[in-house]
C-alpha cells in the first residue's frame, strides 16, 4: 500500500527503537523514573496499540494516553441531549459510527435507534445534508463532533446548506478545540509530563503556531506527529532528543501533511460559522473555558440547539469512573478501579471504554502485553 507501507518498515523501526534506547540512557532523569510522554490524539493511541509500540519501547518511556478522542470526552448529558433530539417526531438524527455506542444516562444512540428513533450512521456531514435534500418533509440533524480535524467539514456543510437554501438541516454542535484542553492538562497539579506527541490531524488545520505556549511557558517539548508507527517512533525520538539537549520546542514531524501555518480555507470556514463557547463540559475533565464552539447567530437556523427543545441537563460522571485520572495520565487504564470489571467494551461505564480510540478500550482490546509479559518471554514457536 503506497504511502503507508513506507511508514511500517520493521527494520527502520528496530533502528529507531535502538536510537530511542540510546537516548534514554543518556538522559539523567530516566535513572530515577520513566519519562512520561502524552499522545494527545486518540489516533495515536490507536496506532500505538494496533502496532504494539508500547511493548517495543524501553521501560524508561511511559506513554500517557491523553484526551484526544472526541467520543471519549463527550459528557453523558450531551449524549442525553442527542437522544432527546433523535426521539422527536420527524427527526432523522445522523452521527459518526463510533458515537452510536457512547452511554447516556438513560440510553445510547444505538439503544434509541433500537427503541424506534431514526438514527443513521453517516461518514461525513455532507452525507447528512444529502439526506436532508432527499427528505424535505423531515428534519435532519447532524451530530457535529470532534476537534479541529472534523470542525471544518461541518462548517463547510453549514455554508453549503445556506448556499442551497436548505431549511431542514441543522447541526448539534459539540465540536471542541484542543489548545485550551492541553493548557488545562498542563495546569493540573497532579500531572507529570515530560513531552507531548502533537495531534497530527488537528494540526493539519491549525498549523503548529498555536502550541508555542507549551514550549515557551510550560517548557515542554511537543512534536506534531503522524499516525503511522514509524511516525510515532520518530516523534518520540525527536522529543527525547529535545529533552537530552535541554530544548523545549514545537517541532513538526508530520511535514508531509501539516503546514506550519495551517490551512487557511478550513480556518476561514471555521471562523465564519462558529464562535467560542465560554465554557464546555468534558467528560472526566470538568468544564474547560473556551474549549468548545457553537454556531454563530448568522447561522442560527442551522443550529439544532436553537431549533429543538434540548434538556441540557448536566449529568455527573459515575462515581466509580476514573476516566479523568486516566485522561490526564495520572492512572494507567488498568489501574482504574472498574477497568475490565464493571467497565468493559460490552458494558462501558466510562466513555474511554467506548470508542476504539479510547485508551481503556484500546488497552482492553489491544494492550495488556507490556504489563503482563514482555514479548521476549513468549515461548518460541515449535
Amino acid at each position, binding site marked *: 500500500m503506497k504511502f503507508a507501507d513506507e511508514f511500517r518498515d520493521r527494520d527502520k523501526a528496530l533502528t529507531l527503537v535502538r536510537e530511542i534506547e540510546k537516548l534514554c540512557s543518556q538522559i539523567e532523569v530516566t535513572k530515577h523514573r520513566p519519562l512520561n510522554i502524552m499522545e494527545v490524539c486518540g489516533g495515536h493511541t490507536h496506532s500505538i496499540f494496533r502496532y*504494539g509500540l508500547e511493548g517495543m519501547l524501553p521501560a524508561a518511556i511511559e506513554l500517557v494516553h491523553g484526551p484526544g478522542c*472526541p467520543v471519549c470526552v463527550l459528557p453523558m448529558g450531551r449524549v442525553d441531549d442527542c437522544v432527546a433530539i433523535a426521539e422527536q417526531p420527524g427527526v432523522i438524527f445522523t452521527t459518526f459510527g463510533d458515537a452510536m*455506542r457512547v452511554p447516556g444516562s438513560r440510553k445510547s444512540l444505538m439503544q434509541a435507534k433500537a427503541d424506534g428513533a431514526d438514527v443513521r450512521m453517516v461518514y*461525513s456531514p455532507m452525507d447528512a445534508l444529502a439526506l436532508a435534500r432527499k427528505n424535505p418533509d423531515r428534519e435532519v440533524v447532524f451530530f457535529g463532533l470532534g476537534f479541529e*480535524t472534523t470542525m471544518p467539514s461541518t462548517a463547510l456543510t453549514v455554508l453549503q446548506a445556506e448556499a442551497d437554501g436548505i431549511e431542514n438541516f441543522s447541526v448539534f454542535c459539540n465540536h471542541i478545540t484542543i489548545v485550551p484542553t492541553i493548557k488545562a492538562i498542563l495546569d493540573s497539579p497532579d500531572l507529570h509530563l515530560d513531552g507531548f506527541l502533537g495531534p497530527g490531524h488537528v494540526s493539519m488545520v491549525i498549523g503548529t503556531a498555536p502550541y508555542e505556549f507549551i514550549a515557551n511557558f510550560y517548557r515542554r517539548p511537543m512534536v506534531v506527529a503522524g499516525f503511522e508507527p514509524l511516525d510515532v517512533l520518530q516523534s518520540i525520538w525527536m522529543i527525547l532528543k529535545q529533552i537530552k539537549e535541554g530544548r523545549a520546542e514545537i517541532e513538526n514531524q508530520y511535514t508531509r501533511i501539516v503546514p506550519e501555518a495551517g490551512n487557511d480555507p478550513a480556518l476561514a470556514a471555521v471562523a465564519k460559522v462558529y464562535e467560542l463557547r465560554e465554557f464546555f463540559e468534558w467528560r472526566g475533565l470538568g468544564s474547560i473555558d473556551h474549549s468548545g464552539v457553537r454556531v454563530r447567530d448568522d447561522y442560527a437556523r442551522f443550529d439544532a440547539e436553537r431549533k429543538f427543545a434540548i434538556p441540557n441537563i448536566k449529568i455527573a460522571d459515575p462515581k466509580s469512573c476514573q476516566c479523568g485520572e486516566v485522561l490526564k495520565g495520572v492512572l494507567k487504564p488498568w489501574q482504574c478501579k472498574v477497568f475490565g470489571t464493571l467497565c468493559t467494551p460490552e458494558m462501558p461505564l466510562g466513555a474511554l471504554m467506548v470508542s476504539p480510540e479510547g485508551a481503556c478500550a484500546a488497552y482492553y482490546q489491544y494492550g495488556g502485553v507490556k504489563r503482563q*509479559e514482555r514479548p521476549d518471554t513468549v*515461548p518460541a514457536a515449535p
Partner: protein
Amino acid sequence: MNLMSPPPRKLGRIHVPAVTLAHGGGGKAMKDLIDDVFVSAFASAEPQALEDQARFELAALAAQGDRLAFTTDSFVVDPLFFPGGDIGKLAVFGTVNDLAVGGAKPLYLSCAVVIEEGMKIDELRRVAQSMAAAARQAGVAIVTGDTKVVQRGACDKLFITTTGVGVIPVGIQLAIGAIRRGDGILVNGLLGDHGAAILAARGDLALETEIESDCAPLHGLIDVILKAAPGTRTIRDATRGGIATVLNEMAEASGVAIEIEEAATPLREEVRGFCEILGLDPLYLANEGKIVLAVPPAEIDAALAAMREHPLGACAMLIGHAYPGEAGRVTMKTAFGGKRIVDMLVGEQLPRIC
C-alpha cells in the same frame, strides 16, 4: 413441501410483478408462488410430490458414515445482491460449510423464506435460481421448505433460513477443544473479502472497490485437507466476527494461547486499503469461503500443500501456533515488530470518527 417423492405434478404459474400478502395465505396464490419460483428452480431429477417432510432411506445414509450432522442458519443481508454473490448463494454455501467444517459430507438442505410484501417476483426468482445453482455446485439437494409473507416493514425484503443434513465418515473426529500446544494455525486464503464487499455494496460509502465476496462451498477443500492431514484437530469457517472471533473461540475451548503473525496473515491489497480508510480491522471482517484450522506439527506441511493444490486454498498460509501461554488468549506479532492482543469483537465494528 417435499421435492423428493413421486408422483410428479403440474406446476402453477405466477402472473403478478410483486409479492402480496395473498402469496402467504395458503391458497392458490401461495401454491403458484412456490411452484413457479421455488419448486421449478430446486427440482431434482427425481420425481416429486408435496409432502410435509422429506424422506430418506436410512441405509443409504448409514453407508456413507457413522454420524448424522445437522445444522441451521438464518441469512439476512443488505443488499440482497452484492459483488460475488447474493443472499441465496450465501444461504446454501453457509449451511453447506457449517456441515463441512465438522467433516461431514453435506447432502440435503431445507429452505424457509420470509418475504416482505412488495418484493419483486423477478428478484425472488433470481434468488431461488441462485440457490439452485449453488446447490448444484455444492452437490446437495434442497428437499423441503417453507414460505411466509409478512407485511411491508415487518422484515427487510427477504430472510432465508437453511437447515442442512450431512453424514460424517467413520474416523473423522474434529473438535474445537482438541487443539494442543504446538499445533499450527492455518487459513485457506485471503481474508475479509466478503465483509468488505458487503460494506462497499451498501452504497453509503463514497468508495469504489472491485472487491468481491469469497462466498464458496468448502467441503471439497476440507475433504482434501482431511486426506492429507488426518490428524487435523479442528476446522471452523470464519464468517461473522472474522478470524479473530474464531481464534478466540478455539483458544478458549482448547485451553491454549494462540499467537498469529501479521506478516503471514493473507490479505488482499484492496481490503487492506479499505480497512485503512474506514478504520476497520480486517481480522474482524466476515468471510464466506474461509476456514481456520488447527493441525498437529507433523502434518502442517502436508495440509498446506494439499490446500494450495485446491482452487479454494491457493493462498493458504500458516498464520500462527498454539502456545502454552495464558489459556484463551490470542495475540498477534505485528509486522512492525510489536505485539498486541486480538480480543473478541464487541458488537459490530463501527467506523472511527477520524
